[in-house]
């Protein structure tokens, strides 16, 4: 028990940025779902089972147009293809996670990834329990936020246009945090410029896969120059 409470106490402060971000994004999501006629049960299920902010926002389109499950699956694969990068980054860190490993991988959202990839538990704190509480707390924040949003959505009505900018703002904040923590900015710049180039070249519906390929290619080609300076 002491091991767990110690890990929980160590994990909580690291999750505060996600607490605020997820409550805000979750509330926004719950409100949007309720304006589309999807009540608290559906929002709760979606956030609990899918647990992927951007895919859930995109899926609203599939809930509000003609039934097309295959297209929903394919678009989710494309929208969430970036998660493959997170998995590659966490192969070693989650190697010894044992029975928790499936849950860690299930819960590897952008935000949880941004914590676990850059944070080491303090000395004397069990790594696996620390990672467990980061993952669990973030999951709880997301479900709680979207349920609050679903409740608010049926109680109040206001113009929600632009509310989904919260997601953009969260990633800009994470980007700035990473930028400040590193002296080597090449990977971040390759990510932004490579993706922007593919967006201009391939258009908004089919740029993610080419962007991922381009990023991998540039990172591969300049490995010696980049890796020599990263840490």
């Amino acid at each position, binding site marked *: 028990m002491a091991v767990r409470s110690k890990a929980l106490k160590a994990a909580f402060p690291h999750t505060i940025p996600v607490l605020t971000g997820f409550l805000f994004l979750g509330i926004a999501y719950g409100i949007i779902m309720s304006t589309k006629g999807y009540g608290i049960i559906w929002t709760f299920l979606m956030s609990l089972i899918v647990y992927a902010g951007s895919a859930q926002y995109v899926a609203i389109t599939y809930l509000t147009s003609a039934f097309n499950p295959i297209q929903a699956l394919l678009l989710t694969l494309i929208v969430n293809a970036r998660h*493959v990068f997170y998995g590659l*980054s966490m*192969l070693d860190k989650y190697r010894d996670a044992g029975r928790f490993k499936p849950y860690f991988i299930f819960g590897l959202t952008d935000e949880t990834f941004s914590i676990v990839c850059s944070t080491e538990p303090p000395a004397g704190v069990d790594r696996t329990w620390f990672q467990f509480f980061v993952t669990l707390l973030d999951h709880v924040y997301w479900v709680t936020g979207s349920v609050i949003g679903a409740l608010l959505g049926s109680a109040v009505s206001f113009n929600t246009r*632009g*509310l989904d900018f919260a997601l953009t703002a969260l*990633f800009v904040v994470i980007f700035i945090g990473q930028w400040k923590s590193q002296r080597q900015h090449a990977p*971040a710049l390759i990510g932004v410029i490579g993706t922007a180039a593919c967006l201009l070249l391939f258009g908004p519906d089919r740029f993610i896969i080419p*962007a991922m390929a381009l990023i991998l290619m540039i990172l591969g080609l300049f490995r010696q120059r980049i890796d020599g300076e990263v840490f």
Partner: protein
Amino acid sequence: MILSPLETLTIIGMVALGTQITRFLPFLLFARRERTHPFVAYLGRVLPYAAIGLLVVYCLKSVSLTAAPHGVPEALAILCVAALHLWKNNTLLSIGGGTVIYMLLVQTIFA
């Protein structure tokens, strides 16, 4: 709701399946390796930064630079988020403030 409950459940199932395929794929592909290949380990070190950069651009994919308002509201709101964050370093303030400003911009000036 225009879909039946069963159809809605199917869509949720598909979105969950698609998401989990992308999360589990690397772990399934590299499950048997004793040690991670050096190149994959290198990717693990640099991809976090590239991936967040990708994500920022991804969020802006629907912004048109050629049609009015030429991405001005997004650019202004992102500048506000960055300025707020560099100034106060408070995540809620940066996200909340930037979002409110963006909503005001697209609902009033750029409506």
